[in-house]
């Protein structure tokens, strides 16, 4: 054998070895890889794709990729396909886009899909990286459900005395939550025919000006409906936020503790009811 021939063989062997390593990398990846050409036909898949979709390689290669897309998502898929081939550039994983794939047994799996262009001898192809997002999705749903549950728990309005409602606000307040609280409180005022409401914000870690503004709206809403409201548990920084807002404090009844607020509520109730003195029922002096 001529020395040049030997060198060529060594070179070919090295190329083979490199190919083998690359193939092993692709095949051992847990991620599903699907290569699709401009016409939408599957050109190549890896073992991860076989596992995810449940099809053998020979069942996928040469077939239209839409068989992996649920019916309802097919029009969206076509738009994405055309957009990619109009300007083949890497697209990030589509997290949060509610993508699903259709497997051989007809079930749907939530996925995240990324696209990158790959040059081949038959033109540009799209390499789709498909990640199973089932676990991800489950965590996301759990977070959503818990947020709703917390919101539900934290909008409890209690009738502590005849015609006196207390809305204890616990945990951080944001604008959405205050809006929800307001609605719940006003509905309850109408249902219970309350006369006085106490909004206790001692359990709120911080009240920024935005939230203070919304709390003011809650109080205004209660006034429009014809009930008196008292804020209790105002901390120094909350007081500061309200002063900074230039809120007309003349109209707002406020007490530092829930206990003091309840005492005030009972006094207001006495006035509202006129002759009937509720403090007699309690046997206490105000």
């Amino acid at each position, binding site marked *: 054998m001529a020395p040049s021939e030997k060198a060529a063989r060594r070179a070919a062997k090295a190329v083979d070895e490199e190919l083998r390593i690359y193939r092993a990398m692709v095949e051992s990846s847990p991620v599903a890889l699907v290569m699709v050409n401009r016409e939408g036909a599957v050109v190549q898949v890896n073992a991860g794709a076989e596992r995810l979709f449940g099809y053998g390689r020979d069942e996928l290669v040469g077939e239209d990729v839409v068989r992996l897309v649920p019916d309802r998502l097919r029009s969206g898929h076509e738009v994405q396909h055309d957009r990619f081939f109009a300007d083949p550039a890497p697209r990030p994983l589509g997290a949060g886009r509610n993508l699903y794939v259709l497997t051989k047994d007809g079930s749907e799996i939530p996925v995240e899909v990324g696209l990158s262009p790959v040059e081949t001898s038959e033109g540009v192809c799209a390499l789709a990286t498909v990640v199973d997002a089932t676990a991800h999705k489950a965590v996301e749903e759990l977070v959503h459900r818990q947020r709703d549950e917390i919101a539900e728990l934290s909008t409890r309005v209690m009738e502590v005395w005849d015609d006196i409602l207390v809305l204890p606000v616990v945990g951080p307040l944001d604008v959405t939550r205050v809006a929800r609280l307001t609605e719940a409180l006003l509905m309850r005022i109408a249902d219970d025919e309350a006369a006085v409401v106490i909004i206790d914000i001692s359990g709120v870690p911080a009240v920024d000006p935005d939230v203070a503004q919304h709390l003011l709206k809650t109080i205004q809403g209660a006034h*429009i409906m014809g009930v008196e409201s008292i804020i209790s548990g105002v901390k120094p920084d909350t007081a500061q936020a309200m002063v900074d807002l230039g809120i007309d404090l003349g109209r707002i009844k406020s007490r530092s503790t829930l206990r003091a607020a309840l005492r005030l509520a009972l006094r207001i109730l006495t006035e509202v009811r006129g002759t009937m003195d509720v403090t007699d029922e309690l046997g206490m002096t105000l």
Partner: protein
Amino acid sequence: VTGTATPWSRVGDDLLVILQGNLDDRAVLQVEQVVTSLVATGGVRGVVIDASKLKVVDSFMARVLTRVVVMIRLMGAETVVAGIQPAVAITLVEMGLSLGSVRTALTPARGLAALQRSSG
């Protein structure tokens, strides 16, 4: 008295005016006119405006309502707006109309009671 767009009745020295239906701008102005002319005849101590039938309010209606309250005050009587529904209250607040200077009550009955109390 019914038959007009603005039913009203006398309760002792007080006047109970009921707002009803979907009031258009013309009807709102008619309410204003009816109420103020009733107060102008004299002998009215207070007016309860029952808004419990109102499902929606617009800024025009809210402005007129506030104006009526001031007009009645100028004529020497007091007004209580009663029965505003939660959804309407939220709309008013969102429009920046807090009715801060208007006396309110949850129900017309409480409104009448409030008028009686304030007159001693």
